[in-house]
Structure formats: C-alpha cells, structure tokens
C-alpha cells in the first residue's frame, strides 16, 4: 500500500470508526448511568435500543413509507421517527425500572442481575413473534438528502454517516449538559454517590432512578434509529451484539463514569473498524474482549474510573 492509499484508508476507517464509536457511546452511557445509580448491569438496555429501531420502523410505515428500498423518506419523517422512538423507549425504560427492578432494590444483587437478563430475553422473544415483528430483519427507510455521497480520495462515503456523527455529538453534548448543569443531573450524581446521603439532602431517589432510566433509554432510542439508518435494516436481535459491545465500552472507560463511557465507546468503535479493515478482520470481535480483559488487568476501574477502597 502506498502512503497515499494508506492515508485514504486511514481517513475512511477513522470516520466509520467514529460513527460506530458514537453509537456505542450513546448506548454505553445508558449502561453507565444505570450502573452508577443502582450498581446494576442492565442487560435489557441493548434490547431497549433494539425497540428504538423497531418503533422507528413502525412509525415510518404509519407515516406512509412503502417499505421498499427505493422509497426514500423526507428528513421531516426521519425526525418524526426519531421523536416517536424516543417517546416509546422512555416509556419502556420507565416501565422496566418501575415494575421489574424497583421491587428488587433490597434483594441480593444476583436477583436484579437475573431479572435484567429475564427482561432482556422477554423483549427479544416478544419481538421475534410473527404477530409483533418477526424473527427476520426488515428494511429501514433511507432518508432523502440533498447530498448523498462525499468523496474522499477515490472513495465514496455516505453523507448519512456524517449526519449520524453530528447527531451523536449533539446528543452527547445535551446529555453532558443535563448531567452537569441541571437539578436532575445533580440528583443523579448525588444518588450515584450514596442513596441514603442523597435522600437526606432531599433528593427523591426513586424519581431520580426513574429519570436515569428515562435518559438512558432516550439515548438508546437515538442510537437505535441511527444504526437503523446506517445499516438500512433492523431486527429483534440487533441489541445483543451492540449491547454487549457498548457494555464493554462502558467498562473499558470505567463503569459509572460518563466521560469514560464516551471514551470507551470511541475506542471500541475505532479499534473495531481499524481491525475490520485489516487482514485480521476475523478477530475483530475477539479483540474487543481481549482489550476489555487487558484493561481490567491494568486498570481494574477502567480508563477513567477508579476502584474506591471499602471503608473498614
């Protein structure tokens, strides 16, 4: 490979990696937020992301999309799909927390873990029913845009990719603002620190926990729609792989640490696309988890997290 070709490859893979990484970051934030307030690995989170994509698909059909690959939808329809998906996932996230996790707040942690896994299986299998969505992937509407491709060197990059990347950055900034500069954000940070202390300071821990799920689910819905747009399809098991990768990203960055989740997401996305574009592409999934175990060895708390010593 000549230097020029190499540079072209590098730019291409970097842009794809950032797009993928941004999606991982959006999902990873949900894992990290929930882990922060409940110390729970919310295995159902990847499936909330899947529901986001599926609901957007349904919304598109309602809004007149003919389900064929040639039928492009207008940007307004795409925005409406995004909005409806967020609403649906927010509701779903709230219901899951309220009815599956809250009764177990005082039970051993293994119970909530198993319940989370149960909820995940439930969602995956309900959506696999033919009456609901069906087991096989379905097409996802492409958006009609003024520019469709961007040329880098001799290679076409889809404009959607840049749109997704821009959208991801926008929503990450919104999330950052909410967490750092609003009362709700302050409540979430206080609750993550200690439930009882937060309660003593007048924080309604139950409400904050619900809101944490709401925020996490909204981000997952956005990620679901973005991936649908990018892959042009959605299916009931699309949450399994992305969920696992995003969770890994959250741990790599330091679970419970929000900046860490974003950093972890981008690291996972970039490393995945670089490896996928090389001759080791077979090993890209294995590599993600090798990276996870290596980082746990060197920095058990993740890149930006820390392991607090237990008070004796």
């Amino acid at each position: 490979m000549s230097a020029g070709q190499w540079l072209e490859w590098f730019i291409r893979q970097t842009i794809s990696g950032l797009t993928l990484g941004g999606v991982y970051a959006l999902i990873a934030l949900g894992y990290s937020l929930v882990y922060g307030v409940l110390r729970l690995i919310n295995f159902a989170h990847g499936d909330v992301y899947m529901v986001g994509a599926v609901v957007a698909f349904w919304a598109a059909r309602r809004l007149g999309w003919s389900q064929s690959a040639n039928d492009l939808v207008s940007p307004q329809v795409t925005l409406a799909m995004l909005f409806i998906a967020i609403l649906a996932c927010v509701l779903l996230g709230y219901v899951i927390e309220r009815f599956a996790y809250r009764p177990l707040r005082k039970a051993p942690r293994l119970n909530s873990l198993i319940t989370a896994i149960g909820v995940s299986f439930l969602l995956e299998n309900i959506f696999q029913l033919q009456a609901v969505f069906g087991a096989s992937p379905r097409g996802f509407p492409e958006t009609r845009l003024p520019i469709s491709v961007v040329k880098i060197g001799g290679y076409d990059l889809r404009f959607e990719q840049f749109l997704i990347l821009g959208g991801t950055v926008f929503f990450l900034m919104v999330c950052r603002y909410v967490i750092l500069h609003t009362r709700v954000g302050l409540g979430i940070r206080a609750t993550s620190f200690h439930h009882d202390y937060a309660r003593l300071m007048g924080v309604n821990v139950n409400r904050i926990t619900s809101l944490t799920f709401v925020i996490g689910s909204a981000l997952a819905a956005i990620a679901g729609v973005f991936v649908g747009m990018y892959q042009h399809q959605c299916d009931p098991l699309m949450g399994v792989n992305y969920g696992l990768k995003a969770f890994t990203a959250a741990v790599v960055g330091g679970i419970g640490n929000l900046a860490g989740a974003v950093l972890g997401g981008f690291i996972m996305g970039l490393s995945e696309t670089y490896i996928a574009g090389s001759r080791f592409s077979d090993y890209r999934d294995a590599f993600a988890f090798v990276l996870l175990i290596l980082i746990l060895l060197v920095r058990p708390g993740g890149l930006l997290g820390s392991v607090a010593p237990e008070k004796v």
Partner: protein
Amino acid sequence: MPRPIRNLVVVLGAVGFPILAQYLANVGAVGAYTQDILYKIALNITLAVGLSLIIGFAGQFSIGHAAFMSLGAFFSGVFTSHVVLGLAKHFDPAYLESDGLSAVLVRSGFLVGAVMVGVLAAAIASILVGLPTLRLRGDYLAIATLGFGEIVFNLLLIYLQKNNADVAYYLPSETNFMSRTVNIASSWALALLAILIVRNLVSSTSGRALPAIRDDEIASAAVGIHTTRYKLLAFVIGSALAGAAGVLEAHQTGTINPASYRFDRSIEMIVPVVLGGSGSLTGCVLAAGGFTYLLELLRGLPSGAQQYRTIVYASVLVLIMILRPQGLMGRWELPDLLHWLRNRFWRREREKKSPMRTAPAAAVVPAIAGGVVAGSGTDAPELECRDLTIRFGGLTAVSAFNLRLFPREIVGLIGPNGAGKTTVFNMVTGVYRPSAGDIRLTGASLVGAGPARINERGIARTFQNIRLFSDLSVLDNVRIALHAHLKTGVPTAILRTPAFYADEQEAHASAMELLQIFDLALLADEVACNLPYGDQRRLEIARALATRPRVLCLDEPAAGMNPAEKRELMNLIRHIRDQFQLTILLIEHDMKVVMGVCERILVLDHGETIAEGRPEEIRNNPKVIEAYLGEPTK
C-alpha cells in the same frame, strides 16, 4: 447409622445407581425418550452444582460459564479424534462395537481419558480468567467471564472455519462411545460425583471459608482466610465440572457447535442455581432436575405454541425473582427439608425451642481483680510501630506513629473522632499499606503482607462496626477462624478420610471451649445476626481468639454495651489476656473501660500522638483535655 456404614452406603449408591440405571436402559426397561431425559437431567445437575459452588457459596458471579463447557468439549473432541482413534486401531472394530462387558469397559476408559483432557482444559482456562479478576471485589469476574465467553466463541469459530470450513466440529463416528451403552452411567456418575465434591467441600470447616467470603470478605481475611485462593478454588472446581459436562455432551451428540455455548446457554445454567436457592445445594439439584423435565414437557406442546416457550420461561424467571427472591429452598439443605417435612406430616410435634441462656453472664468468667504486672521495659517488644505514616491523597491521616507493645500488656489507644485510631489498626492488620514507617511483630516486619498473612503471623482484630459472618451460626463463626490451625485441608475434606473427622472433632471442641469462655455455648446453633448486640461484640472477640493470636486488637469493644456488660467486658479482657498470654491493643471511647483496664494509654489527635503514659497521667494531661474539650478559656 454409624459413620463408616453411612459413607459406604453413599459410595455404593453413587457407584451403583448409574450402573443400575444404565443396565435397565440397555436391557430395554427404560425407553429411549426417558433415557434422553435422564441423561439431560444429569448433565444439567452437574452444571448447576458447579455453578452453585461459585455463585451460591463463594458469592462470585460467573456469567460466561458455557465457555468452559465448550472448551472441555472442544479439546476432548480433538483428543478423541486423534489419540483415541489411533489407539482404537489396535482393537478389532467388531469387538469395540460389541456390548460385552470388557468392550464397555474399554469404551468407558476412552471416555475417562477424554473427560480428563476436558477437565484440564477448563481448569487451566479458569485459572487464567480467575487469577487476575478474583483479586478484586465486585462485578469484575462477571464482566471478565462475559467477555471470555465471547472470545472463546469467536476463536473456536475462526479455528473451525479455517481448518474444517464448517461452523461445527464433528467427532468421527468411531469415537461415538457415549451415545450407546454408557450415556446414563457416565452422566449420572458425573452428576453424583459433582454433588459429593461440592457437598463435602461446603460442609467442612475449610470449605466454610466460602460462605464466609460471600458474607464478608474483609472479615474473612482478618481471620486468616486467603480469600483469593478460596475464590479461585471454587471457580476452578465449578469450571472443571462444566468442562467435564462439555466432554459428555460432545461425545453424546458427536457434534461440537460453538454457537450453542454462548451467553444464553450460560444463563440457562444460572437459572436453576438462583431458582433453587442460591447457597442451597439441594435446591439447585432439585431446580436443575425439575426445570429440565419441565422444559422437555413444554417441547410436547403443539408447534404453534412453541414460539411462546421462551416468553413463558423468561416471564416465570422474572416473576420468581420478584416474588421469591431467596429462591425455592432459600438456604435449606436436604436435612432441613426432611426435618420440616417430618414435623409437618408425621409427628406434628411442636418445634423444639432452642435452649435459652439461663445462667447470668458473669458466672463463667472469674473476676480477676487488679492488674497483673505488665511486662517490664527490658523485654523485647511484641509489636512495634516505627514512624508509621499514611497519606490519602493530600491528607495525612496518621503521621509518625510510634508504639512499643510489650508482651502481655494492655494498651489503650484513645483520641477524638477522626484522630486516626482505626487507621492505625488497619495498617497493623494489613488492610491499608502504610506510606512510610515499619511495623514489626517480634522483630519481623509486616509491611506489605496482606490481612490473611498478618493474621497467620499472630495479629487478630475486631471491627468497630461488628463484622460477623451474619448468615452463619455462632459456632461456624468461631470454627472458620480456626481454619488456619486445621491439620487437614480441602483435599481431605472432599475425600472424607478418617483424619478429616478427627480434625473436625478437634475444631468443634476448641470452638465450643471458646464459646464457653464467652458464655455463648448455649447459643452455638443460633444464626449470628440474631444475637443481641453485646453478644455479637463478644462473639467477634471469640472469633478473633480462635485464630490463636499473640496480639489482639480490639476496636471499640464496649460500644453499645450497658454498664453491667461493660464491667463484665473489663473482667473478660483481663481474663483472656492471662489465659491466652495475649498482648492487647484497645481502641475505646468509654473512659471508665479505658482507665480501668489499660496499663498504658496513647492519645492520638489529628493523626499525631499527643500523649503517652499511665492512665492517671493521661487523665491529668492538659494536652489531652484540650484535644477532647477544647482550649481552656482564660
């Protein structure tokens, strides 16, 4: 039943049942469908029992357990396809296929070889995953095993695609020794072996270290349990059992498909452990067997209903977790269940009340008035801290702390809240590593040793906020602490040799003796968390003494006690010092206790030693008064 006969019955049953079941199957008394269910039940029991040791007893989450199963399956599959096939060439094929006893034995021999390879592969892998992650507390094992499961799946898939151009590994039909003649015998032999190993381990004194770690890891280390070692032991045994189950599955089906050993399979294994009652071996065996049978029944549903199977399964799982979080059996084992059934249906007798304590507390401990003369300054110090300093970030919690503790002395460490007293204890017992300075026990440095190691060297402690193993009995709390002084270890516990019983008896006797001293003997079978506060404090001291220390560190032993209990405690402290030849370092806020029992007192304030001397000197020291009450007004 006397013990040797009982053990003989257990062994005969464990050997006889699989052979009998297999015989009945081979002569046609058991149908093919029942055989298949029997085989699956045994396999799932093996998996659940192994996982129950890790999750239920040691309290560690392994959620990629199927990976160990696939490693066992894969490596044994490669082994049989190459090695065993080579060996089989030396036999007449017709003979190997025959149903004669010697041919069955040869085939079983091949299978045993394969099982050993599979167990070895799973065990090595579990050490690689467990060693780095089990040092840490929390969810790290869960995360690492989750990732490990995906790595194993990916690598096996890549291997198969490169070498066999297929997504599964197929065993040559000649090596298909399981599916005929020995499938039930081998699977049930493995299941019963798994049950025996785990039961023998967790009902022994050394094996009780596992529930102790589950209840409180810091307290476990403080009584001399090497926590990482025990967690790893549980993890390796559990994973090796999964490896063995993988071998059987591979040789039963003749196919090794990595995709069938992914996350959902691991979850399928965890379900019976949690449903049966995490920490109940009986519960997980019943749940694994029952659940396997139920799932087989659901397979009989009409095909239109099949798609709802997993939905029903997942809903039941969530509902049971919410409605009965402790699982079906809680922590009951078979004897508890039988006892309950007997009382419920046969005798209907009222439950025996546990014997209440009658004797007044002080009766057992002779009140020793006055102090024994403290060790004179000419002796070598038992414990010595030199310029001990610790910084947390920018805060110096303790600076240049010096202490010489002479044999059989009782020294008090006092000071206002936040003065750094407990931090000194934490450094001396290895919970924190000092930033500078040295700690020496009879001349040898302790800096850098972990809490368990330091306990073995002869320092024991109690905790400011009581840290008993709250789910275990009073007797077990003390017995576990004897664990470093047992003559026999885990292998003897699993094999149940005569030496094991002698050792158990001795442990029981010394534990009871200690409980007697602390007037807790009548409460020996009570669960520790049900004890009144003062009894819990004294039980914690008894537990510390069981580790046979030279130096005992008591962190606010009188906290929460009433005046009578405090007086009794003072006598007790002097009494144990004399009886066990102890040196005692004591943190206490109650001045009556400190002044009454200590021969020398050190006063800490803001991490610095501001005074040292005999009680009456300390009482009148203006600096001490200032530290406690503030500056005098002029």
